[in-house]
């Protein structure tokens, strides 16, 4: 989660710009309707001035750049880095603190667990503990 300061500023600035463009467009539409009603000609003032259009486009593209650059760290998508992350403990898979690999099931083989041997190991260990 790294939201750097420059990208935050960029987002704030471009949002302001976008809001301003919206407001200008709104004002313009009000102005043109009142003008139209006075002049009684429906065709005048129906197009938006170029500067408002440009302002909108620029602010939206800046906003996009800001949002993308402020995005979170990308997740690893190659198996190599993901598996490596799991192995080294950088990436935790469901609360798993010890880095158990992705294919650990093939090493552990739970269906073939030799429970009697483990039980014996445990009793031996208990004896050494006294």
């Amino acid at each position, binding site marked *: 989660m790294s939201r750097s300061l420059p990208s935050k500023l960029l987002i704030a600035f471009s949002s302001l710009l976008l809001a301003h463009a919206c407001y200008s467009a709104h004002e313009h539409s009000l102005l043109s309707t009142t003008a139209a009603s006075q002049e009684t000609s429906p065709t005048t003032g129906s197009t938006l001035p170029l500067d408002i259009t440009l302002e909108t486009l620029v602010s939206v593209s800046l906003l996009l750049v800001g949002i993308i650059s402020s995005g979170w760290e990308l997740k690893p998508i190659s198996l190599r880095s993901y598996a490596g992350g799991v192995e*080294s403990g950088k990436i935790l898979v469901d609360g798993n603190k010890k880095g158990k690999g992705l294919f650990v099931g093939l090493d552990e083989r739970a269906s073939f667990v030799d429970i009697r041997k483990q039980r014996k190991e445990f009793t031996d260990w208990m004896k050494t503990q006294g």
Partner: protein
Amino acid sequence: MSLTSLLNRFKSASVHPTPSESLSLSQLAPSILNLSITDTPEQWALYESLLLSTLRTGDDTSARLVLQRLADRFGNDNARIMALQGIYDECTATNQSQLEEVLKNYTDLLKDDPTNIPIAKRRITLLHSLSKKSEAISALTTLIDLNPTDAESWSQLAQYYFEISMYPQAIYCLEEVLLILPNAYNVHARLGEIQFVAAESVSGASKEAVEKLEASLRWYLRAVELCDGYLRGYYGVKLVTGKLLESKISATNRTIPEEKINKLNSVATVQLNDIVTGSEKGKKGFTGYDSAEVAAAKELLEATS
């Protein structure tokens, strides 16, 4: 403690925990059994792990209770419950004749329903632990004939073959695992290990031994390629390259040029050094390594430097 945090504790433990680990897990039994039954898959997974832990530590009364609850929910004729019941019986059997009884029970169950794979696997394990190794292997091959796409069975068969030093067969089985799970990097590392051991078993500097060592090196390299910072893989690379660089191996037998082997050796050394220092200082991003494996890597580094 909540259900998920309890479950996570069991998940972090391996299927083959150390005795002290088993003890602490088994001591969670009262708190787990006192939780209200919510009938979620997580809870039943937790019950299953708890059953194994309590059996390991000899807490048979808790185990009985856990098994009873599982059986009440899923019924006694559920294949997995049957296998768990079998594990319980194996543990509570006190002498040889009782174990034979359990084994006979497994065989009877399989006669009724040959598709009961959990029971089949239990039977194989019990056969093996009763030192009927060849019977275990033949039972496992029958199971594999029924279901040749089960990676776990192939992997176990490889282990059995490896134990009786039948390396080509073990390699064959692990190759089958790769056909099912082509990205299983630990299987690649395992193949490297088996090739290495096989190379040790033939006479030192012969052409065959060098071939096996090179094959071993390649499997280890593939494991490292599939998984960044794989301790076991780099350990193998370092070990095998060191072996190949030993003077008694004549360069004519090698297909990989010496400078490449040298470079690979130094790459592995750098990586192992990183892991060992990072892990010893407990740096973030190095906490996942097993301390015993790190110690072994350190030993290897010190022996060769």
